């Protein structure tokens, strides 16, 4: 699909523009950016600004990781995307239509999991699925049971279909919540912490399910505070911190910014620091017997030789690749699992 004129009548993309990378699997004929927000803001009655003028652009076919520590405004944003709460200002477009105005025509094409699973505990898993499907006018009642069975099978709950949800574990409820989103063919899935409460095996299953759905052309917008989830799953990411989007790009771009650093352990740190600075490394830092810096394009082997030539005794020498978590900490000033 050509990046076309559809963008022309929209405001120009913000600074963190997200061009579809080559790895993105675009479905023909679909809206180019299934999720767009402009200046989206939510101020609660307490005066707290939970979401502060965010501009999101989720490309079609992407698996878009919506990252941020707990309390950074991810769930509030998702609630606004789905029309559950009204923005204080700003706008949302889902699948090219304005929310919440067009919600009755848009939401049937959107599968949603918002802030953990919620069900009628006194009903079976299947009965819960049937009820939520019955609420959607566009859902065909003739195929309802069939589709419920398929959705339950896809999340591995066929055996528990007739059990009351009261008896489900948290992991089973989480799967059931995903099954609700899978009752119909969706163009967009909005998943809030989809692997919450799942054991490692369940987490793997959900991730492979997400990949499978993405392969079918469904755009996935998933929030998470788990680093591994983003690294293993996502093609794009936006990082949120204290209500603002601090970074939005393809994962490839995000990774390429994380340049490796040269790290040297030596009994002669001062001499090493001087030598490396002289060789043209930037951001050289000395701490105890460790010296590190950004080698840029300089060849590593030449650097080692130059240090030896400068009579620096080397105990350890190597390149350190920063993790995504380092980037995250740099962006938000806090780690992935830090609650505010």
């Amino acid at each position: 699909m050509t990046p076309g004129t559809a963008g022309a009548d929209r405001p120009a993309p913000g600074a963190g523009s997200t061009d579809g990378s080559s790895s993105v699997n675009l479905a023909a004929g679909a809206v180019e950016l299934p999720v767009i927000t402009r200046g989206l803001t939510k101020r609660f009655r307490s005066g707290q600004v939970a979401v502060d003028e965010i501009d999101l652009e989720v490309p079609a076919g992407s698996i878009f990781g919506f990252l941020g520590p707990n309390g950074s405004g991810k769930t509030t944003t998702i609630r606004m995307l789905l029309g559950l709460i009204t923005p204080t200002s700003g706008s949302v477009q889902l699948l090219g239509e304005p929310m919440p105005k067009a919600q009755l025509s848009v939401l049937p094409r959107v599968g949603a999991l918002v802030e953990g699973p919620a069900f009628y505990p006194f009903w079976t898993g299947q009965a819960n699925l049937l009820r939520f499907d019955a609420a959607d006018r566009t859902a065909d009642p003739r195929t309802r049971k069939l589709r419920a069975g398929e959705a339950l099978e896809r999340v591995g709950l066929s055996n528990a279909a007739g059990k009351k949800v009261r008896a489900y574990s948290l992991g089973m409820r989480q799967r059931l919540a995903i099954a609700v989103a899978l009752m119909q063919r969706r163009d967009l899935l909005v998943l809030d912490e989809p692997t919450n409460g799942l054991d490692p095996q369940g987490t793997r299953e959900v991730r492979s399910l997400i990949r499978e759905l993405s392969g079918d052309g469904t755009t996935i917008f998933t929030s998470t505070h788990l680093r591994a989830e983003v690294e293993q799953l996502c093609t794009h990411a936006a990082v949120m911190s204290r209500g603002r989007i601090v970074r939005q790009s393809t994962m490839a771009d995000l990774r390429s910014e994380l340049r490796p650093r040269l790290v040297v352990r030596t009994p002669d740190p001062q001499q090493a620091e001087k030598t490396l600075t002289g060789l043209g490394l930037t951001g050289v830092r000395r701490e105890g017997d460790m010296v590190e810096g950004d080698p840029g394009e300089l060849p590593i082997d030449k650097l080692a030789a130059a240090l030896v030539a400068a009579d620096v005794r080397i105990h350890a020498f190597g390149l350190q690749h920063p993790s995504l978590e380092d980037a995250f900490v740099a962006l938000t000033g806090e780690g992935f699992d830090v609650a505010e």
Partner: protein
Amino acid sequence: MSPSEIPEATAPTVTGPSASGPSASGPAASSGPSASGGPASSGVVGGASAATVTRAAPVRPSAGRHTVALFASELHLVFGRARTWVTLAVLAGVPVLVGVAIRLSGSEGGAEGFIGQIAGNGFFLIVASLGLSLPFFLPTAVTVVAGESLAGEASLGTLRNMLTAPAGRSRLLAAKMVALAVFCLSATMVIWVSGLIAGVALFPVGDVVLLSGTTVSLADGLLRAFGIAILVALSLLGLAGIGLFVSSLTSTPLAAMAATFGAFIVLGILGAIPQIDVIHPWLLMYGWTSFADLLRDPPYWDAIVRNLWIQAAYLAVFYAAAWARLTSRDING
């Protein structure tokens, strides 16, 4: 280019009554580049609503509107709960309890009104039970179900699932109200049936002497009692409206029930203060006893109709308030 890029002015190419089939001609014709991909376009930008054809989804008729399903599902939610059946069982017990008590105490109890006539004709057990349940049992039952309706969904978190389904807020509210009305009717019908069975089992049953002194056949009497059951159910709708509104304010069902019942009690107290009798005719329960006028020949319709207007007014005001609240509410639960 795909129809999503066609400005609104040219939208008629994809609009029209076409959207009934998955291969509607509009999207297929205008999504030239997708010949290889197969999935048809969903022409949505600029939003003519007709073009909601989804990609590769023959199971989803875009023109289909299955509105009834939500209402059926609401009934299932109310009547699929053990609590509802326990409530109905308690209501069914009222005529049995009254009947057994009168049978055991002997026929010359000297009671007045309908209760006094039960020993002579079991038919009056139906009417007496409806009258005895109206001041307390029925309002309690309605309060519980109404309080649960929206607050219960909010406390479970299922309200957000319903709204993202999407049920539509106005439609969900309508479905809740319909289910509430059906519950009111089934509550009084249970008393009618139970009263009939207990009346026949415990007492002699025969032609019915009306309040106006005329005698009608048992069938005529039963029909009038049926009408009374419907009138009593309609008398509960004002309270149901209050309960629905209170339920839209909170995420705690118990708080909604308590507040609704509190409002009911306050209305009752107001009705008992003679100094403010000028407002009495406008209170919710003022015309509740009018159902007895159906047992006259011909029935006195004035009080009955007036009561129905009062119920309709209360229902309209509080339903509108509930609608205003639900459609503007932030669903955070």
